[in-house]
């Protein structure tokens, strides 16, 4: 009977091995992230990092953070644990932005000086960013009034109804599918739209979702 007491001791090497493996996984993951970022940072371009663990979006160049946006709330579907670089394929909003067209003036028409420009306040606050690796990011601004709060009730329902269907659809074609829904402050949502240019590279990572 006495020897039964030693049974838990037998599990210690197993538990230690498991802890070492998890620790190693997280170092490997950090290693992958750093390698990916280093490759992007070597180019003379601005890039982004979606850090889903700390709920932050960083705009960076050469490893330096130039702008940090705080993610208010976040929903993740799929696997964002693979530390790969992804480019922004397109930005889509309900109403596309219209750039002002300059009408060449006639020298004598005496037209008044007017300013029609594309500024931060003209940027949308609800839109979708489509990235490579089948990553789709829905960006919304925090509801500020009762109507927008009521309207935002539909989002969780839409999320849980459409994500599985899209996952199944992508699986049929043998592709992974990752979807993110993030809520930002109104101005931050506009800044993100302004700062993200098509073709821009970055990393979306969620260490929490890796095993």
């Amino acid at each position, binding site marked *: 009977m006495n020897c039964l007491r030693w049974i838990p001791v037998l599990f210690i090497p197993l538990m230690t091995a498991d802890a070492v493996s998890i620790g190693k996984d997280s170092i490997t993951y950090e290693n992958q992230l750093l390698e990916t970022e280093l490759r992007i940072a070597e180019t003379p371009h601005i890039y982004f990092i979606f850090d889903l663990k700390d709920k932050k979006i960083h705009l960076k160049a050469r490893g330096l953070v130039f702008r940090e946006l705080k993610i208010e709330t976040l929903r993740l579907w799929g696997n964002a644990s693979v530390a790969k670089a992804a480019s922004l394929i397109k930005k889509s909003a309900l109403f596309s932005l219209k750039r002002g067209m*300059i009408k060449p003036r006639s020298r004598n028409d005496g037209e008044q000086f007017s300013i029609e420009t594309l500024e931060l306040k003209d940027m949308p606050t609800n839109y979708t960013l489509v990235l490579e690796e089948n990553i789709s990011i829905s960006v919304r601004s925090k509801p500020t009034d009762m109507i927008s709060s009521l309207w935002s009730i539909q989002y969780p329902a839409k999320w849980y109804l459409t994500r599985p269907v899209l996952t199944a659809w992508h699986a049929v074609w043998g592709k992974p599918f990752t979807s993110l829904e993030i809520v930002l402050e109104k101005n931050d949502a506009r800044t993100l739209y302004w700062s993200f240019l098509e073709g821009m590279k970055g990393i979306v990572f969620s260490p929490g979702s890796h095993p």
Partner: protein
Amino acid sequence: MKYKKHFFKSLFIFLTIFLGVEVAGFYIASRNVSGDGARSLAGNAGDERPDELRTRNRLLKDSLKGLSPKGVYIVIDTARNILYLRNNKRVIREAIVSSGSGNILIEPNGQRKWVFDTPRGEYTIQAKKHHPVWRRPDWAFIEEGSAIPTKVTDRLEEGVLGDYAMGFGNSYFIHGTLYTRLLGRNVTHGCVRLGDDDLKAVYTAADIGTKLYIY
């Protein structure tokens, strides 16, 4: 009654298929999170020891730090129209600027098109000019509806760029402005305009070769 029965039958079939797809979607998603990540990490982790990986991570972090600009450099936030003059990580001056309007100009014959955005990315100060003279490009004449001159001397205009100008390539400059009331707005043809005092400070601090980051 027959139609009603048909309707409910179709609805039942649709809901069953939909539920099936939903369950499959949930299952695939959960499998991807717990499975693929584990495999990809385990595959790589098997090659090196944790201490070797730690050393490599330190080296990678050092390499990343090594890429950052040293000394004085300029950062321009076109969304907020703010210029930061930085020395290493410290902001030594913050200034309000005007950057590109994003407007489009098309030549009346439709042959050429200009988009007046301030370019984004990493640049270098390539030229510094005291009392700069603006050599007006074709779009400036097209915009005001006048003929494009053939002589270079007819393109030159003094006093519109302020006291200093710093070129960062492709005819883009950081320069002064007569329209100080428009600082903080996106109104330019792609250049970055600064107020007089800030312009002087940036001009003095930045040398040719100084890095410029625009986002």
